């Protein structure tokens, strides 16, 4: 069993480099180390200029998404043991502009999230003293999976539509919209419909399904999008057949 492992890491410092290059580092191989542990070793001991985002190291904050051997992964949840003894290629998350080494520019993602109005929309609010909105465990189950998104953007890095069309709303944002649409306390589905039924909304999705495959939290954004397409189509038919219907 090898005692070290090679990391082939993308380097890019905009003040110094015309374009990204690859630098190889040798890190200790430990069976319970994840890729993030190896990156931290490099930064702490070998080259402090290596830049990447990380925080919780337990797969809940969503900071540390990168391409590992060409696949979008949370580096805090990706074990060296699954790749050793071969070298591991670590690159910035695909389809996002690169800022510095493994750090990408993510403001587009934030705008997309904000754009779907991800908050409870109601005609009338309950007063605090009236207590909670009742919601049974079954009603909670209707949207629970979609509420698990940690905003890690792996699904965007996996989505070929987003790769071709940066205007595409994208998996996580649509899943988040559906999280609210399916929440029994929310009454904002109609408001969100306008944004999402646009060309770059749900209809941009061609059901490749890679987003669901890479999601580390089993959110199933592809499922959310297909579910949403169904309700959007139903709504379109309804408005055709019953234009006088109250909404």
């Amino acid at each position, binding site marked *: 069993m090898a005692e070290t492992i090679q990391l082939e890491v993308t380097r890019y410092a905009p003040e110094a480099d015309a374009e990204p290059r690859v630098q190889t580092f040798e890190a200790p191989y430990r069976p319970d180390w994840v890729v993030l542990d190896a990156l931290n070793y490099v930064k702490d001991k070998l080259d402090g200029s290596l830049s990447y985002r*990380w925080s919780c*190291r*337990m797969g809940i*904050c969503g900071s540390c998404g990168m391409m590992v051997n060409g696949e979008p992964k949370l580096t805090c949840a990706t074990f060296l043991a699954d790749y050793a003894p071969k070298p591991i290629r670590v690159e910035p998350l695909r389809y996002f502009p690169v800022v510095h080494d493994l750090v990408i520019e993510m403001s587009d993602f934030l705008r997309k999230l904000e754009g779907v*109005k991800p908050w409870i929309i109601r005609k009338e609010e309950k007063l605090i003293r009236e207590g*909670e909105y009742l919601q049974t465990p079954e009603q909670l189950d209707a949207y629970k999976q979609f509420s698990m998104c940690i905003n890690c953007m792996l699904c965007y890095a996996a989505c070929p539509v987003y790769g071709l069309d940066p205007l595409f709303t994208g998996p996580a944002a649509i899943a988040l919209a559906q999280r609210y649409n399916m929440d029994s306390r929310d009454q904002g589905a109609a408001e969100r419909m306008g944004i999402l039924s646009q060309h770059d909304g749900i209809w941009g999705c061609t059901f490749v399904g890679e987003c669901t495959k890479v999601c580390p939290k089993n959110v199933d954004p592809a499922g959310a999008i297909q579910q949403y397409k169904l309700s959007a189509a139903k709504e379109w038919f309804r408005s055709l057949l019953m234009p006088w219907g109250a909404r």
Partner: protein
Amino acid sequence: MDLTSHDVLIVGGGGAGLRAAIAVAETNPRLSVAVISKVYPMRSHTVSAEGGAAGVIKPGDSFEDHAYDTISGGDWLCDQDAVEAFVREAPEELLRLEHWGCPWSREPDGHIAVRAFGGMKKLRTWFAADKTGFHMLHTLFQTTLKYTTLARYDEWFVTKLLVEDGRVQGVVAIELMSGKMQGIAAKAVILCTGGCGRVFPFTTNANIKTGDGMALAYRAGAPLKDMEFVQYHPTGLPFTGILITEAARSEGGWLMNKDGYRYLQDYNLGKPEPKPVLRSMELGPRDRLSQAFVKETEKGRTIKGPYGDVVHLDLRHLGEKTINSKLPFVRELCTKYQNLDPVKDLIPVRPVVHYMMGGVHTDIHAATPLGGLYAAGEVACVSINGANRLGSNSLPELLVFGARAGRAAAEHASAQTSSRDGTVLAQALDEMRRIEQQYLRGTSGKERVATLREEMQKALEEGAGIYRTGTSLRLAAEKIRVLKERLKNISLDDRGRTFNTELISALELEFMLDVAETIAHSALERTESRGAHQRTDHTKRDDQKFLAHSLVHRGADDAPRVTYLPVTITRWPPAERVYGQPGEEKGAKGAAGH
């Protein structure tokens, strides 16, 4: 240099910061309010909290009960007026969050469900599966998106508070993306930057928990309070330090030594029963459980693992159905990071630094003694947690004091005339020059950030761990002083401007060293044992001298100066802290009765 200004500036975008932001926007929608955070808000460490948030809502429970549990849990170092306000406001804040969409777990009839938690006499801990902090943070963040007047500085690192005329006037910050430094004037600043677990080597805390706000306040002349009280969570995973929630014990988990023996029964925590008993055994308070681990280790009864001593957390008798519905994240973490399945296997755990009871001194309105400066959440010390925090009190603390800070800061800002922009700019330029000189110019320095950081962590672990002595603390304090000198000789590999994470880690190290120093000195001065602060050379609780908070100010020579502030007692005179005994109601009702 650019200069922007706001009425209220909130440093930190976690649970407390986001709640404060909403409170400002709702108190006075005409105020200019901004949240500035070194990470995108959904990365804040609130996201990692698992177990739950306590609030009285079920029949048979009462504010008095929650207050008594909190005060006795805190070994009587809690300010009782603050606790009384806290327990009263917690349920309405949790309900407000429910109205904002938080997916609280429910009973079959649709009402909010509650569960047992350590040190609590009644079931009052609301939960969202075992990802309560995650759901609370995302609910708060998504709700803030509604408020179009709320500005955000995402990935900006605050390096200094600007003070003039005894008042906070704003901050200086670095925009990570470009490396540019900027002064931001503000009539009120709220610190919501969380705790400082990363001053220790082994912690549940994320990388970002470096005590930034505590150091910012300390350097600006505001005192830190009760810094010696560091909470070790009894059940962290051995290599990573990843948290295994107390909820695992509320649902019935057992802690066992190498003989399969539930050893907590030897430590005055009651008798083992098959089902969990409130305030007893595995549902005792965190400080007592962590201390029991150390004693078991000394007796040679812990299990020797590849990363040191551990004990076993046994969840097997809970069954797969309960584990999947109540503890799914625990199962996921164990599978992923320990290669075991809690349905069939024992989980190796050990105490891990988790929470800072101490922090920036505030009153019950979240105001510090420095005009215009407020603090809320783990960064602050009100104090509602005293010498030891009960699990599931810190999430409601974010909401209650985040809201209080927001309201107080909004009122203060509304009453202020414009700030002194000229001074802000001058100070900000000085700060920019300081950082450029020290870190970004070429130097002959030899020290590495990681080296100094590791030595600091080792010094604190050895000198200021679960059990301390005067000698160990003096050694730790001296070591930190040396490290602060060595910091001046630091050399960065990265002297670029764009997203320079090494620079940020050096600035965080500066902050951590200041905070570490206050921990060592405060612990040294407190010659008693209380709650999470245990001295083997002073083993008794001493209410004559030490029914008081330590306050530590930065002295003129940069050395910490410790003074004391009496604890506010309202209805519950200090009594013996009793767990696992039927007679624990002793002192429960307080002198004045209710």
